């Protein structure tokens, strides 16, 4: 497939998904809460309200209003948060770094553990450690992430008091306005429990996936042929077998993004991590419609972007999808 065709196809798909999400966002705005009441309160007379309604375009046909909504959205204007009295997008973006760093921490943990563990379990199929890991993984799959979070807070945060269990700790503001917890010891120590918790649910899934794919690759003819060529065990395992497990792992990883974002909401709630998920739940409880819409649209955007990147990576590491410039 040609790379340009690929990019165009992906871009069209992304736009369609975003359009669908924006329609959902707009219908919420249209049906949930009365923007007028939030703006002017109860004391204004009915005539004045009607006039305001007309002025704000709330009496226009659905399509006209939607196009206006879309036009504003494209310019990054998704309305003003009722509670914070600030543009909803700004409020969300303030919280974005916290969620992003939590996810990075979790991804780092589960990738660095699941790959060696998955390979180990595939190679040593019957060892006692494999049995422990595999049993542990099915137990791990069965523990909801919020229970892991509660257990972590209770054990390490409260009973043992080893690690901070609430909030983000000290952060440093980077020149472009990004609040990072990576640069302070306090920030990093606050990151440990939430990111372990968030990774705990993905870890068993990935161990099982990598093990299964690795087992399959190791039983293929090309791995047998590699052995018959007299290659070292390491080369057979890591170059021939493992390379072939990367494709399905990337695919499934891409499918997990939505789940990961959903789990950030649970994790952030328990650890009171000041990220987008925590903010979203607060917005739901306050019926802060513009903020709810902004969250849905920003998350949709993140999802579309990450998915496109994953697809792109897939085409890069999959030689079956040919890019221009490759010989052959």
């Amino acid at each position: 497939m040609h790379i340009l065709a690929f990019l165009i196809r992906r871009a069209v798909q992304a736009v369609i998904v975003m359009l669908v999400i924006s329609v959902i966002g707009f219908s919420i705005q249209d049906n949930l809460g009365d923007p007028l009441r939030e703006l002017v309160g109860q004391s204004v007379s009915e005539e004045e309200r009607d006039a305001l309604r007309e002025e704000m375009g709330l009496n226009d046909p659905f399509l006209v209003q939607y196009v206006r909504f879309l036009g504003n959205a494209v310019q990054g204007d998704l309305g003003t948060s009722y509670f914070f009295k600030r543009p909803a997008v700004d409020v969300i973006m303030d919280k974005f770094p916290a969620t992003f760093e939590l996810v990075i921490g979790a991804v780092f943990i589960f990738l660095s553990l699941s790959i060696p563990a998955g390979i180990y379990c595939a190679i040593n199929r019957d060892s006692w450690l494999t049995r422990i890991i595999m049993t542990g993984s099915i137990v791990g799959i069965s523990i909801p992430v919020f229970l892991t979070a509660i257990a972590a807070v209770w054990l390490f945060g409260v009973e043992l008091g080893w690690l901070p269990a609430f909030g983000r700790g000290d952060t440093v503001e980077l020149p472009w306005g990004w609040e990072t917890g990576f640069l302070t010891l306090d920030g990093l120590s606050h990151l440990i429990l939430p990111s372990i918790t968030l990774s705990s649910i993905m870890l068993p899934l990935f161990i099982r996936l990598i093990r299964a794919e690795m087992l399959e690759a190791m039983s293929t003819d090309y791995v047998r042929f590699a052995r018959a060529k007299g290659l070292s065990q390491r080369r057979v395992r890591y170059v021939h077998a493992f390379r072939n497990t990367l494709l399905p792992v990337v695919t499934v990883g891409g499918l997990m993004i939505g789940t990961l974002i959903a789990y950030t909401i649970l994790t952030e709630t328990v650890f009171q991590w000041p990220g987008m998920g925590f903010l979203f739940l607060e917005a739901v409880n306050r019926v802060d419609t513009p903020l709810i819409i902004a969250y849905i649209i920003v998350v949709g955007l993140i999802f579309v972007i990450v998915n496109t990147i994953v697809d792109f990576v897939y085409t890069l590491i999959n030689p079956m999808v040919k890019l221009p410039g490759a010989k052959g």
Partner: protein
Amino acid sequence: MAMLEVRDLHVAFPQGKRNEVEALRGVNLTLEKGERLGVVGESGAGKSMLAFAILNLIAEPGRVSHGEVMFHGENLLDLSERDIRGIRGNRISMIFQDPMVTLNPVLTIGTQMMETLKAHRNISDADARKLCIAKLKQVAIPSAESRLAAYPHELSGGLRQRVVIAIALLTDPEVIIADEPTTALDVTIQAEIMALILKLCRENDVALILITHDLGVVAEVTERIMIMYAGLCVEDGPTKRIIEAPSHPYSDGLLRALPQHAGRGTKLYQIPGSMPPITALPPGCAYHPRCARATAECKRTIPPLENGVACFHPLDQDEAAS
């Protein structure tokens, strides 16, 4: 002493928790330098098992339960993993059945060739590259230089099998074991690939073990034939002798089943019944349920391999495949 000698080889697979079944039940084989041997039998007879057992590559949970594989007087089955790697792909190479799945889809042809050389030779990248291109030219692959950067899926099945042959020849091995090297290919190019293997073996004085179910191919390529049935060798001898006058009723049946033996308009012969699976072998000669010559003795005792045939009632010269 022969260059390669397999003695009383048994390969067993676990069945259930305690039992084992044997896929090879005591196979002997000798191969001289530069000799071409055909191993013939139906699928399931244990031909491929024999090939993999020679290089100690039986897939888990199977294992070689008994026997020796003597190569230049050294038992390959006793070698350490490290030492046998020095034999595999270096002094004894293999060609697999289906080129569509033999080459790793995510590695280039070049990588898969160079790594073989690098595993066995202390050679610079540039020299290795040169050698790879030379071998690709030997197997008649057009524009060999540019193929090194190609991935397997960019080549046709025939070209891929040529690459596999080139890889097998890279290290100038003494023996090539070819396991049904043309079965998975288009009929139109089967003969071409077979001719190529024959030519290269002759030119480089490489011994060949050709594993196939096709007696016709073996007749054209090999000097000696070994016929296998249900994990045992039932007949063994010079190709010419067996083709012209087989002794074992099974060999005879295989020959009769060849299309060239059926006259115009007559029905193609077929051996009645089918080979039993290794999990359900009959007592005595495993072939007796399909054999017209079988007697009570055949149902009791496994006939030993004597004078190149394992049968209590071998065919006479004039009876055979007439």
